[in-house]
């Protein structure tokens, strides 16, 4: 981890999720120097937060950590975490990024990741990394396989008791730490700012998060993860093992009323994956998926969907109109059935999972003069022949930053963005021009 100062890199990669890591590695492997700037306290993005991935059912931690570690240990890559991009502009011949290192209240250089502070802290706070189902401390390492392993303090909840500072063997806790601004220059940049999940609160018909035992798909990922909050699947309201689980598709997508008219592209597949994992951990549970269209379009996805049907997962074609609280923690699902005799029907389930959609992870606004498409994701100006080109010279886009995308499509796009960036760099660097002349 370099200390904030005026720094120059061949390429700046904005975002340390799977797309950003892949783009950075592809550039670094060509001996270009790369800076990854990540807003969270750890790299790994959304992927490291998942249980398993479709359609291979690889454990997400097991295949993301090698990428994270490879980037963290690459001699040509420097990672800046917990940093906010203040501006990214073309200045003269290159790009200038103003970056704010947010205060962790822990000295990044001194912290050795021993977690003594965490063990000493008396405050328990709901842990968003575990879907809010378990607690963390007010000073903590984000999650067990986070990179870097540096603690940060949650000042909202810290009671200033001083125990962490006393416990720290390296005197890394610093209550007076302030944000630090620094400037980074680069010849080219890859925007890999990913996505956020559509807010549960927006959908009045689905209870806006107020109905007990209606959870989000990201929360279900944690329930299914091997190192999740309960180590098994229990419904959060009363700890009951659910006998009947429903998945509601397009709960945040293909819905003009939410301002998300587009398809979020991954929800069908992650739901099928979760349903399969669930039938593994709760073999007796009834699992129902309410859907409009199953969009299993990628390599091996349709076969995965067919397998799920063969496993006995019940797929019901019908748009769920609204959800309501039922008896003893159950959830009532009201939907228009398009099967059998049709008509409006009500079903009761012990646990309901909403397949929320994807929103852009970053709004460039005043920060960067790059244009957006009508879907508010970053606009690509040549979607067919050069799908990672933005309207800002030398700036390329990869992954969900340019529209919802699954992991493999993000990986392909990250490679493509890295290729565009390498060509851009090669054209500007005398050493590479010599190579060109020689060929």
């Amino acid at each position, binding site marked *: 981890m370099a200390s904030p100062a005026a720094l120059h890199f061949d390429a700046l990669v904005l975002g340390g999720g799977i797309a950003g890591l892949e783009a950075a590695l*592809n550039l670094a*492997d*060509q*001996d270009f120097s790369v800076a990854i700037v990540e807003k969270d306290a750890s790299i790994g993005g959304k992927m490291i937060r998942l249980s398993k*991935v479709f*359609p291979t059912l690889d454990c997400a*931690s*097991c*295949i993301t*950590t*090698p*990428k994270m*570690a*490879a980037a963290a240990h690459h001699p040509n890559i420097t990672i800046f975490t917990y940093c906010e991009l203040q501006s990214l502009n073309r200045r003269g011949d290159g790009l200038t990024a103003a970056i704010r290192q947010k205060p962790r209240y822990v000295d990044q250089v001194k912290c050795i990741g021993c977690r003594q502070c965490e063990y000493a802290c008396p405050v328990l706070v709901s842990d968003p990394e575990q879907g809010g189902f378990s607690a963390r401390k007010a000073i903590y390492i984000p999650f*067990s*396989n986070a*990179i870097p*392993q540096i603690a940060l303090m949650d000042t909202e909840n810290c009671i200033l008791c001083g125990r962490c500072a006393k416990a720290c063997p390296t005197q890394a806790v610093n209550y007076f730490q302030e944000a630090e601004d620094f400037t980074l220059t680069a010849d080219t940049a890859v925007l890999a700012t990913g996505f956020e999940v559509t807010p549960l609160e927006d959908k009045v018909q689905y209870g806006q998060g107020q109905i007990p035992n209606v959870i989000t798909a990201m929360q279900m990922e944690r329930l299914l*993860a*091997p*190192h999740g909050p309960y180590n098994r699947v229990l419904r959060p309201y009363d700890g009951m093992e659910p006998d009947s689980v429903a998945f509601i598709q397009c709960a945040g997508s293909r819905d003009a009323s939410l301002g998300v008219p*587009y*398809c979020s*592209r991954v929800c069908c597949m992650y739901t099928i994956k979760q349903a399969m994992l669930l039938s593994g951990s709760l073999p007796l549970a009834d699992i129902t998926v309410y859907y409009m*269209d199953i969009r*299993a*379009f*990628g*390599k091996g*996805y*349709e*076969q995965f969907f067919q397998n799920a049907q063969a496993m006995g997962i019940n797929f019901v*074609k019908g748009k769920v109109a609204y959800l309501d609280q039922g008896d003893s923690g159950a959830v009532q699902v009201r939907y228009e059935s*398009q099967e*059998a005799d*049709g008509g409006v029907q009500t079903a009761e389930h012990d646990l309901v999972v909403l397949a929320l959609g994807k929103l852009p992870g970053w709004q460039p606004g005043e920060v960067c003069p790059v244009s957006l*498409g009508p879907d508010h994701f970053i606009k690509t100006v040549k*979607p*067919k*022949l050069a*799908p*990672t080109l933005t309207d800002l010279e030398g700036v390329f886009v990869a992954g969900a930053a340019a*529209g919802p995308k699954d*992991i*493999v*499509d993000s*990986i*392909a*796009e*990250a*490679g*493509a963005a890295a*290729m565009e960036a390498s*060509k851009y760099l*090669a054209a500007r660097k005398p050493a*590479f*021009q010599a*190579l*060109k002349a020689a*060929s």
Partner: protein
Amino acid sequence: MSEKKHPEPTSEGKVGVYVCYCGGNISDQVDVEKVCAQVRKVPGVVVARSNMFMCSDPGQELIIEDLKNGVVDRVVVASCSPSLHETTFRQALVRAGVNPYVYEHANLREQVSWVHHGAEATEKATRLVAAAAAKAGMLNPLKPIRVEAKPHAVIIGGGVSGLKTALELAERGLAATILEKSPFLGGQVANLETLAPTGEPVAEVMTELVSAVLRHPAVTVHTCAQVEGFEGYVGNFKLTVAKAPPTGSEFDDRLERAGRSGKGLGEFIPFAGVMPQAVPSGREEVVLEAGVVVLATGFRTYQPRQGEYGYGEFPEVITLPQFIRGLAENPSTGDTLIWQGRPIKRLAMIHCVGSRQIPGVHEENDGGYQNEYCSRTCCGAMLYAANRIRESHPKTHILDFYRDIRTYGRGQEELYTQAAKNGVLFFRFEAGEEPQISKNTGSAHPLQVKVRDVLTFGEEIEAAVDLVVLAVGQEANDIADLVDKMKIPLGADRFLQEVHPKLRPVELPPAGMLLAGNCQAPFDVGESCATASSAAVKAAAILARGYVELDPFVAEVDLSKCQGSGACVEACLADGALTMAEMEIDGQKVRRAQVNPALCLGCGACVAVCPANAINIQGWTLAQYETMVDMIVSNDYLEGA
């Protein structure tokens, strides 16, 4: 890697064992602490530690610290499959300044915790770790094999993906050669008119791409070219290519189209492509050397079976590519679409033809296979066509029969919404209840479509129509000859099989061989270009650096024992990896076995047949195996033993 100084491990070996919980994946079944306690009793083991995620930074740090402090000089990690993390941990050794090959991996997840439970799981885990530790004690530092890479890429296939890959490399300053079997560049995309969902004219897209390729001095193009010979390895591939006038009638239609277009070489001819050079008059052989090879062999469209939805039976049943071409060649104006002189009042469109075929539900295709996958592009293409018809011929009504509408991509859901606004009527059918097409005798419309419609609660619907358009799917091109020559894997779906479908989609298992575009899976043009650029970036990493480092797990001949029997050469599975070479030993001219490390697969077939035990695989010697076996059957380290 080789620049760092490696302290020589001591001869007896101080083995450190590091056991992973894998966040419960292992520790839920295996008592990790007990494994540690037991393997501490294995001779040579000086520490045994555990961690929640050994692959995480703090886990790796444990190992690095022990190595740096001289506590251990050989490492065993017991965690998941080595295919996931062996490299991760070898790199950790490198960071500690230690040779990466004094490392042994034990698999406690796939081989233990996921398949065994309880005390037996812990016992098996202990035995595997003990064996690994015993072997680790005997490991010696090895040097990776460094292979120079020829600064040139060969790309097989001159469609959009191949063209894009070549152009990317050229613009990065690297030389590339495209081999195309037909006389034309442009592949399947040349058979389209505009691209969904944004409507770019194919002529413009194709002209831009192909002219950039042909203009670039770093790209060489060979059309009418077939790979006849293939040998070599990453960095040093050798391809023998035959250029010859096409035999058979496969390209006749396109050549004839080119002939009457009046267009010259290098110009785009709709529904044919671009001829960059004349068809060769005779046979010519070209030998190419390459550091990397990119497969961009593309796809073909599904050919419906005779009688499938009435195809081949009724002239009014056509495929979407036929429809697109027909409309482009005979543009129709006016409120009603005209197809082959007939007004089309009602047009039926049927999705998933030759895609999403389910064994036991659908018939097999000619050749006895089924396409179980979704072809990804047809929904968008079909709705795009539907909108164009509705918008320019409002009196032509469209009935769309589908299973699921998969408008997943950017700008595609809008096509679906627009189609609904345009009055396209949608009918949904279940797999196995496909619409039935029959001859309509009683009305002016020649065909009758009958379907059980899910959207109206299973109502039987019949409609008289004038034309039926089938959304045919994508199939991988038949490249059995290349698959055979290059020893590369095909998946069950007959597309080429990548290394990892999630994280390494553009790489093939043999190092230095890459995948671009639709030979891997169905894609649209933008997605193909993304995979092509992605393949190019992997190629650039090898070519720009100029060399590749390979693992040293290859055969090694002990010349003091070799008798020159030649048994190993006969047993060798990799052509050229083992040869008999003349050499002088003690003033005598003898023939002895010699290894080409870059070609050796490290399979050990030679080891098994050597009558003198003179050949071994580095890092996997017979002596090391014997120690492992001894340790696996020993009970000395088990608690209570």
